[in-house]
C-alpha cells in the first residue's frame, strides 16, 4: 500500500509542529524519518495513522484519505506500535498477540482457524513463542517490543508504522527487530518508522526523510540525505560519514566538540601508521598543532589525523614512499618543534620515515615510544631496529607511555631552555 502525504500542516496549541510536509512512500519500502528530538517525527506518524487530524493537507493510503476512513477500516490496513506502550493488567503474550485480530473479528467471534494460524505465524516471526504464556508485564524491554511487533503482524497490516522501535533495546534486539521488519517488506508490507539512530536508518531504510523543526530538510536514499552538511543543519553537530564495508551501508560518527587551540605550545610531527597514532594524536591535539606523515589515505591514523585537523603528508597506499613525499615529510619535520615516533610496525614501505627522522641530526627533539620493543614491530630484518637504536643513541628521548609523552612535551615547550634533554 502506498502512502501519500500532501501539504500537511499540524499545530498543537497554536504552535506549528509540522509544516508543508509532502512525501510519498511506495509499497514494500522501508522509510525512515530521522531528526532531532522535538522535530515532529512522532507527530508526523500520528497524523499518518489517523490518531491526529492534520490542520491542512491530507494523508492518503493508496487513493483514500485517512480521515475519511473509519477507525476500523484504518486498522484493517494500517497499524502502529507507538513508543513506550504500557499494558494494563496481566495479559499473556498470546492474549496480546491475539488482540491483533480484533479488526478482523466480530465482537464475540471465537478465533477461527485463520486467526489461530496468523497468531501462530506472527509469534514465530517475532520469536516470542517460547514465552507465549507469560504475562507481558513480566517481560524485558526487548521481549515486550517483540510481542508488540507480533501483535502488529498478526493484524496483517499493509502499512506498519513504528515509533522508535529500538529505543532502550540492546543492539542484538535492535538488529532482530529490524531484520524481522525487513523480511516482512518482501511480502509487500510498507514500513514507516521514526528513528533517532542514524546508523540504523542508514543500514535498513530504503529511503530517509530528515525532519528539522517540523519541516522536511531532505528526502532520498540514505547516502543523499545523511550528509555531514544536512546532519549539521538538523542536529547542530559535526559528523563524519563513512562507509561500513561489513554492511555496505553508511556509518555516521559524531565528532566530539573540541576547543580550538588558541595558541598552540608548538608544532609536533607524528610518525605513525596502522592505528598506532590514534591515541597519541588525540592526546596532543588540544595543545599542539600537529602534522602526520608519510601516511596513506587508507590508514586508520589518516582518519584520526584528518578529524583532528592535522597537516598530513600523503602518499599512495601499497607502494613505497615516493621521493617527493619523503622530501615533503622531511621539510615538515624540520619546521617542527618536536617529532614523535609512535610504536608503529615498520616494514619496507614506511621505513623511509625512520630514515628521515635520522636525517634531522637531532636538530629537532625526537621522542620514541617504546624503543626497546622495536624488534617485535620490525618487519625489515633488523633495519628498523637498527635505525631506532641509532636515533636513541644520538639523543632521541625514549618514552614508555602517552602520559609520559604529554608530560615531557609540556615540560619541554613550557620552559624556555629547550633541548636540555
Amino acid at each position, binding site marked *: 500500500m502506498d502512502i501519500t502525504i500532501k501539504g500537511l500542516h499540524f499545530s498543537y496549541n497554536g504552535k506549528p509542529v509540522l509544516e508543508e510536509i509532502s512525501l510519498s512512500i511506495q509499497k514494500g519500502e522501508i522509510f525512515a524519518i530521522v531528526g532531532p528530538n522535538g522535530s515532529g517525527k512522532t507527530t508526523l506518524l500520528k497524523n499518518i495513522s489517523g490518531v491526529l487530524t492534520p490542520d491542512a493537507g491530507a494523508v492518503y493510503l493508496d487513493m483514500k484519505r485517512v480521515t475519511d476512513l473509519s477507525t476500523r477500516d484504518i486498522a484493517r490496513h494500517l497499524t502502529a506500535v507507538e513508543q513506550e506502550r504500557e499494558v494494563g493488567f496481566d495479559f499473556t503474550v498470546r492474549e496480546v498477540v491475539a488482540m491483533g485480530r*480484533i479488526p478482523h473479528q466480530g465482537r464475540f467471534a471465537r478465533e477461527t482457524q485463520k486467526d489461530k494460524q496468523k497468531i501462530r505465524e506472527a509469534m514465530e516471526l517475532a520469536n516470542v513463542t517460547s514465552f507465549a504464556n507469560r504475562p507481558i508485564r513480566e517481560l524485558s524491554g526487548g521481549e515486550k517490543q517483540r510481542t508488540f511487533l507480533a501483535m502488529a503482524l498478526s493484524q496483517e497490516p499493509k502499512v506498519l508504522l513504528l515509533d522508535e522501535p529500538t529505543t532502550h533495546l540492546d543492539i542484538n534486539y535492535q538488529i532482530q527487530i529490524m531484520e524481522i521488519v525487513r523480511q516482512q517488506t518482501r511480502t509487500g508490507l510498507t514500513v514507516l518508522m521514526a528513528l533517532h539512530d542514524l546508523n540504523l536508518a542508514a543500514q535498513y531504510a530504503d529511503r530517509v526523510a530528515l525532519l528539522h523543526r517540523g519541516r522536511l530538510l531532505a528526502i532520498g536514499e540514505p547516502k543523499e540525505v545523511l550528509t555531514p552538511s544536512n546532519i549539521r543543519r538538523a542536529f547542530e553537530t559535526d559528523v563524519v560519514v563513512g562507509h561500513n564495508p561489513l554492511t555496505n551501508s553508511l556509518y555516521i560518527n559524531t565528532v566530539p566538540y573540541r576547543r580550538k587551540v588558541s595558541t598552540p605550545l608548538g608544532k609536533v610531527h607524528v610518525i605513525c601508521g596502522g592505528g598506532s597514532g590514534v591515541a597519541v594524536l588525540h592526546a596532543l591535539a588540544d595543545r599542539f598543532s600537529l602534522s602526520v606523515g608519510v601516511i596513506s589515505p587508507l590508514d586508520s591514523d589518516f582518519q584520526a589525523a584528518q578529524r583532528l585537523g592535522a597537516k598530513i603528508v600523503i602518499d599512495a597506499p601499497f607502494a613505497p614512499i615516493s621521493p617527493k613525499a619523503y622530501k615533503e615529510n622531511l621539510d615538515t619535520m624540520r619546521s617542527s618543534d618536536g617529532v614523535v615516533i609512535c610504536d608503529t610496525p615498520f616494514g619496507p614501505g614506511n621505513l623511509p620515515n625512520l630514515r628521515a627522522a635520522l636525517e634531522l641530526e637531532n636538530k629537532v627533539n625526537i621522542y620514541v615510544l617504546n624503543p626497546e620493543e622495536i624488534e617485535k614491530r620490525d618487519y625489515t630484518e633488523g633495519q628498523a631496529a637498527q635505525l631506532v637504536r641509532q636515533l636513541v643513541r644520538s639523543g632521541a628521548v625514549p618514552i614508555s607511555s602517552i602520559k609520559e609523552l604529554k608530560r615531557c612535551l609540556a615540560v619541554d615547550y613550557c620552559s624556555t631552555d629547550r633541548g636540555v634533554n
Partner: protein
Amino acid sequence: MRRSPRGYRRRVFVILLALAAVTLVAGVIVGPVYIPISDAFSYLIGRGTSADGSPSVSYLIISQIRLPRVLLGLLVGCALAISGGTMQGLFRNPLASPYVLGIASGASTGASLIILLNLHGVLFLSLGAFIGGSLAVGIVYQLAQERDRKTSVYTLILAGVAVGALFSAVTSFIIFLSSGTERMTDVIFWIMGGLGRANWTYLYVLTPIVALGSVILIVFSRDLNALAMGEEGAFHLGINPETSKRIMLGVATLLTSSAVAFAGTIGFVGLIIPHIMRLIIGPDHRFLLPATAIAGAVFLVWADMVARTVVQPAELPVGIITAFLGAPFFLYLLKTKKARM
C-alpha cells in the same frame, strides 16, 4: 499458572451459575423466621398457597420480604460489580471502583436532602439519590473535557476525588443540621447502605436497567481489552477510544447510580469482586465482566444474609459485612496468588 483455557473458564461459569441458584434459595430460607426448604421451593416454582387455599405465613414472608430483598441484592451486587470491573478496565487501574467519579458522595447528598426535607413516597429517596449521583458525575465529566472533546482519565480521577469531597462536605452539613433527630440516624444508615427497603416497585424499576446495562457493557467488553493497550493502542486495533469510553462510562454510571439509589452506598463489592474474578478467570474482559456480574450478585446476597442474622433481631448495615468479608479474602488472594497491582 494463570492460563485460562476454554474448559477452565466454562467450569468457572458453571460453578458461578450453580452458586447463584443456591443463593436464591438460601436467601429465601435464611432469616429470623425459619422457612422450610420445601416452602421456599414451592413458592419459587409458583405454587405458594397452603393446603386450604389461603396464603400461608411463609408465603407472605417470602413474597413480601425475603424474595424482594434477595432479588434486590442480586441486582445491586451485579450492577456494582460489573460497573467496578468496567471502571477498572477503563482506568486501567485495579484500584478503581464504581464510586471513583463521585457517584457515592453525590447520591448520599441527594438522599440526605430528601430525608432532611422529610419527603415521603416509595421512589422519592431513590430519585434524590439518583439525581445527586448523576449530578456529581456530570460535573466531573464536564471538568475532564479537554480540547477536541477528548477526556483525560487522569483528570477524571482527580476531578472525581475533588467533587466527591465537596459533596461529602454537603452531606456532613446535612447530618449536622439534623443532629439529634431520627433523621440523622436515617441519613447515616442510608449512607452505610442496605437492602432493607426492598420492595417490588424497586425491582420493577431496577431490573430492566441492570439487565440492559449489563448486556451493553458485556457487548463492549472487547473494547476494554483493546484499551488495555492504551488509547492509541486501542485506536490502532480499530477501536475508537473516545466512543467506547463515553458509552461505557455512561452505562457504568447509570448502573451504579441506580443501584445506589435503591440500596445506598454499599462499598467494596465494586472494588473487590472484579479484582477477585480477575485473579480467577484472567484479565480478558469478555469473560471477566459476565463472571464479575454473577459473582457480585451472589456475594451481596450472602453478605446480606450475614447482616440480617448475625445480631438478631437487629440488622447490621450490609456495607460493614461486605468490607469485613471482602477485604480479608482479597488480602488472602493477593498474598497467595502474588497478584500484581
